């Protein structure tokens, strides 16, 4: 206590390592693993994994899912430049995606011809060069607007940019841009006498593009520019004071993001061979944000992982059987991750199962019509839960009420603490299951959207750095 040697010594920094709360168990192992494996081996693993997965995608549907995953990974990578690295919240990113797609469509279809014939029909390389260069210029222009604006204002202006893009393609010059009907009959990617014609082919093109972009971005991230971006994000004022060219960097971030977004747009349009204004709505933007946020803002690996996870999850939701795996799997995962110790977890899981079968039994004794409906899940999950959840014969109104109840119950769970929270979790999960089986699973499209929203909210609250990210990201 009166060790005089300590007086006046500021050892906080020197001793900070042994003051840190290091985490235990799996978390610690993962952290250490994360610290040891280098970045380039990881990229090689991703590329190799991509090729192997490509060999396993045996039907067109799976190949389409594979292509979409890579496309969204690419989009998330592009978004990450402005949002994750430079700390500029860009809500107009979807316009760059649309710009690339429409750019490709105009030069590879009859749009520039007259009366449905003629048109440019340029080879792929030329289109890519023209469109990406133009996208870079558009990015610079929007970046110039960004110079005048602080973070939040920038967000709203860019949101308007996305909206303006929609207005333009819907209303301006329908003869060339196709209006609400969009553009169709686009050439596939073709050059040097060959062309990409199969979905699997586009999968590999997208894989190559993704690996290339990731590699370029990695070099950029570890370069002077990358460091300067991070400085800009953490403290623009200090960055400016250190003679970092803040303005040029902001513009560059937008411009690079625009180029990657446009590249994704080209691939999208070529593979789909049509473009419609509705391909570029705010919903898609939010989907891209979900990819980025889930993977971890600021992390290249995270963006790729997020793109894949979100696309695959979205695909799973559209099939009742897979959706069941996803729903019950996530609940189980969340409980395993959050409820400790193991004995308590066993009690909670037991409680959830027992509550359901008891409730089903009691309700079926009182009124057989109250349980006459069929759960939405099919397969073995469907048969297991048919004696578990309560689904009346006309489940729509019932499901709607349950949905509201689930939302309220979730709020209650967040507010409660300790044992009470655990007790509240049991009925919440059960009601959620009833709601899922009676209402949500029947409307996969809407359910997907709601889940994307929930993913954004929950990720931000529970793990703002996403699955992989570790950096602090701040918009100033």
């Amino acid at each position: 206590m009166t060790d005089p040697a300590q007086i006046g010594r500021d050892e906080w920094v020197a001793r900070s390592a042994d003051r840190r709360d290091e985490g235990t168990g799996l978390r610690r192992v993962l952290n250490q693993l994360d610290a040891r494996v280098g970045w380039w081996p990881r990229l090689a693993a991703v590329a190799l994994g991509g090729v192997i997965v490509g060999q396993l995608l045996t039907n067109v549907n799976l190949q389409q899912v594979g292509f979409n995953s890579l496309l969204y990974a690419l989009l998330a990578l592009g978004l990450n430049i402005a949002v994750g690295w430079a700390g500029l919240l860009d809500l107009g990113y979807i316009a760059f995606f649309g710009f690339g797609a429409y750019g490709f469509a105009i030069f590879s279809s009859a749009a520039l011809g007259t009366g449905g014939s003629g048109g440019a029909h340029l080879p792929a390389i030329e289109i890519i060069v023209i469109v990406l260069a133009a996208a870079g210029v558009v990015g610079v222009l929007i970046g110039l607007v960004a110079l005048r604006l602080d973070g939040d204002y920038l967000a709203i202006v860019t949101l308007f940019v996305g909206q303006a893009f929609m207005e333009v393609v819907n209303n301006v010059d329908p003869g060339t841009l196709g209006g609400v009907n969009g553009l169709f009959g686009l050439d596939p990617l073709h050059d040097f006498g060959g062309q990409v014609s199969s979905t699997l082919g586009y999968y590999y093109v997208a894989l190559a593009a993704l690996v290339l972009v990731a590699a370029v971005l990695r070099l950029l991230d570890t370069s002077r520019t990358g460091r300067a971006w991070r400085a800009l994000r953490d403290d623009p004022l200090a960055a400016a004071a250190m003679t970092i060219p803040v303005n040029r960097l902001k513009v560059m971030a937008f411009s690079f993001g625009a180029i990657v977004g446009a590249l994704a747009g080209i691939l999208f349009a070529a593979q789909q061979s049509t473009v419609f204004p509705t391909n570029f709505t705010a919903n898609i933007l939010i989907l891209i944000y979900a990819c980025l946020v889930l993977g971890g803002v600021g992390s290249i690996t995270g963006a790729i992982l997020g793109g894949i996870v979100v696309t695959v999850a979205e695909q799973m939701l559209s099939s009742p059987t897979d959706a069941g795996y996803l729903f019950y799997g996530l609940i189980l995962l969340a409980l395993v991750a959050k409820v400790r110790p193991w004995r308590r977890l066993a009690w909670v899981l037991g409680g959830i199962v027992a509550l359901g079968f008891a409730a089903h039994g009691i309700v079926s004794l009182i009124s057989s019509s109250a349980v006459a409906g069929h759960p939405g899940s099919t397969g073995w999950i469907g048969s297991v839960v048919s004696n578990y959840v309560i689904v009346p014969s006309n489940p729509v109104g019932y499901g709607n009420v349950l949905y509201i109840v689930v939302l309220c119950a979730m709020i209650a769970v967040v507010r409660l603490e300790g044992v009470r929270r655990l007790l509240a979790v049991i009925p919440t999960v059960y009601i959620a299951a009833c709601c899922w089986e009676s209402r949500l699973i029947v409307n996969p499209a809407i359910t997907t959207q709601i889940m994307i929203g929930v993913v954004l909210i929950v990720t931000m609250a529970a793990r703002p750095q996403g699955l992989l990210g570790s950096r602090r990201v701040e918009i100033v």
Partner: protein
Amino acid sequence: MHELLQTTVNGLTTGCLYALIALGYSMVYGILKLLNFAHGDLYMVGAYIGYFVIQWFGGPNAVSIPVPLLLAIMVLLAAVGVGVLGMAIERFAYRPLRDAPRIAPLITALGVSFVLENTVLLLFGGFTRSYSTPTFISFNSGITLDGVRIDSVELMIFGLSFAMMYGLHQLVQRTTLGKSMRAVASDREAAEMLGINVDRTIALTFFIGSAMAGVAGVMSGLAFNQISNTIGFLAGLKAFTAAVVGGIGSIAGSMIGGLLIGLCESFSASYVSSEYTDLIVFGILIATMLLRPTGILGQKALQKV
């Protein structure tokens, strides 16, 4: 001349609604520095509450209670319902992120907006619903000034909007709650150090701001008849523009900004082209931000560096 005045009246009507939404945006932004993207969707929920109140009391063709009473119930329920919803959103989605990096609550707000929009889609379907206002409030009610019609719905919108704005102004300037709100907006930790209940102050700010959006929803349902689950996005965007143009954080600014945006819209729809209305509003936003980033009435906050 006649058309000009009529266009002005229409523009002011829309403008009042934008102003009400803008106020909530502005208040929340002031106190949390958060762009609450879900705010426009709260307006949408308000419109739905009003719609279901009409259905509850017999539907537009057979309203079972006096119309003024019906309107009062609609406004009140929308205010309270949406206000509570706004508080719940704050508690559930934003409060855990108080001290998080600024980008986190923004993304959460996107998520909340998405959830709200799709929840309404799930519960009530995606089709457009109609208030059928003319069947219970005659178009011929109201006043005619020099050939310019101001119907009773428009009168109600003017009256209610100005009353609410005046009330809000008094609240913020005179009451302890209002002073606490300003204190929390200016320095949250310092406010907490004085014993101000920061959580409650922020929750009440959300309640008031959301309630005003809810009322705006009801009134837009009455005035424009059409509601759907997607009306919140654009309305929210334009209301935010109004808040920025007027000067975010300023009550009078939000009001002026809202009226200005409303007028621009109705004039560009009447004299230019309704298709380019949104682009024109967007142009105004960009011009404001480039020429006067603090808005018409906004003042540059004293920023400690």
